[in-house]
């Protein structure tokens, strides 16, 4: 399973069974379904995948950051678009 396939799978899981909002799920699925547009950016996609997998609405609530919130994911999506 490629990182893109994993991203699609995890995004669907987080959207359907977690708290991932649609406004994030849509661009994530767009990335997952367009690997040809992310050539040479797989490192960022890997980071994005990890962030989606550990997505937590309250990621910033604790003293240590071991989860990711919508801001993290949106930022990584922006980096993907900018590079």
């Amino acid at each position, binding site marked *: 399973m490629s990182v893109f396939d994993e991203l699609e799978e995890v995004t669907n899981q987080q959207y359907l069974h977690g708290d991932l909002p649609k406004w994030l799920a849509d661009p994530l699925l767009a990335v997952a379904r367009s690997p040809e547009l992310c050539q040479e950016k797989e*490192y960022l996609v*890997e*980071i994005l995948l*990890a962030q989606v997998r550990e997505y937590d609405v309250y990621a910033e609530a604790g003293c*240590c*950051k*071991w989860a990711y919130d919508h801001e*993290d994911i949106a*930022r*990584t999506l922006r*980096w993907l678009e900018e590079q």
Partner: protein
Amino acid sequence: MAVYLDCNSTTPVEPSVASLVLRFLEKDFGNAASPIHDYGLFARSAVEHARMLVGKVVGARPDEVLFTSGATESNNMAILGLADAGIKSRRRHVITTAIEHKAVLEPFEELARRGFDVDILTVGPDGRFKVEDLAEALRPDTLLVSTMQANNETGVVHPLAETAKLLTGHDAWWHVDAAQGYGKDLEQLRDPRIDMIAVSGHKIYGPKGVGALILRKRDGLRPPLQPLAFGGGQEQGLRPGTLPVPLIAGFGEAAKLALRDNETRRTTCLAFRRLVHEALDRLGAGHNGDETWTMPHCVNVSLDGIPSDLAINALKGVIALSSTSACTSHTRTPSHVLTAMGRTPTQVETSLRLSWCHMTPEVDWDEVVGILRKIRSRR
């Protein structure tokens, strides 16, 4: 150029790892401790991603991974970092083995100087300690047990599963120096009873200068280490200083590849080992370490009548190898590992360590054997 057969001292860097290191050296050079702009935020993302990848190899959570400069520093942090806890709890007994790396033995010497009661377990001719000896040495006030996963000189793997079973129910903290086995032998280090794991990036085709100390939480709390250095609060307050983002990112990539390619790498190394054995057995090599218990990428042999220094020099145009651990070979002292295994001075003086990896090219073993035979015939 000679074929590199000294992977136990350091490994070549995977191309994709080198590429990532270069990226964070040149383009994305931010400080992970400055997440107030994109440069710092991306650096922090890279560090946290690497933390996840490094921990994943041993089944640890990202918050259980502390980045260090390498296994030597990690070993020191684990062993000396526990000293205060031992003193406060009046548990001043510590146990290790006679064939540990000096990065473990010397911190234990320091503990002895600080008043700790140090027990050093002997090993058999096969290079392994006996779990029953550990059982006998354990006391209610034992603070720390330190055993390596695989020996750096012989490649011999230690009985970690049996040790874990023995230590279940005992309060001693268990530290494993896994510099040689991390990312290679995957199953052993996933045992949740192992409290602390020291690893290095440059043993798994990552960059030099970076490693980790993995601190498994016990009942939600990490081992009660105190920092050895101060100023900055990075790595949960235990290892201050600006994080080397390029090295850490490279280490994470190396860890990812070690996990992904583990089986193919092992198969390649085993095939290479068969060739090594075939060649050396033509010289009547005495093996320092039972093949049953040896990592697939390392062989240590004694070649009667062929002093190791002469062999290494004569072979330098064909293969690059060493006689003892790189950390000690320049001191020209006998290997404490082989000595502890009961090898004679002659066997120690004629010992050679050959260690390879999945990237090692073919070797002209006929030429190797021919050169070694010439040395023997001249003596």
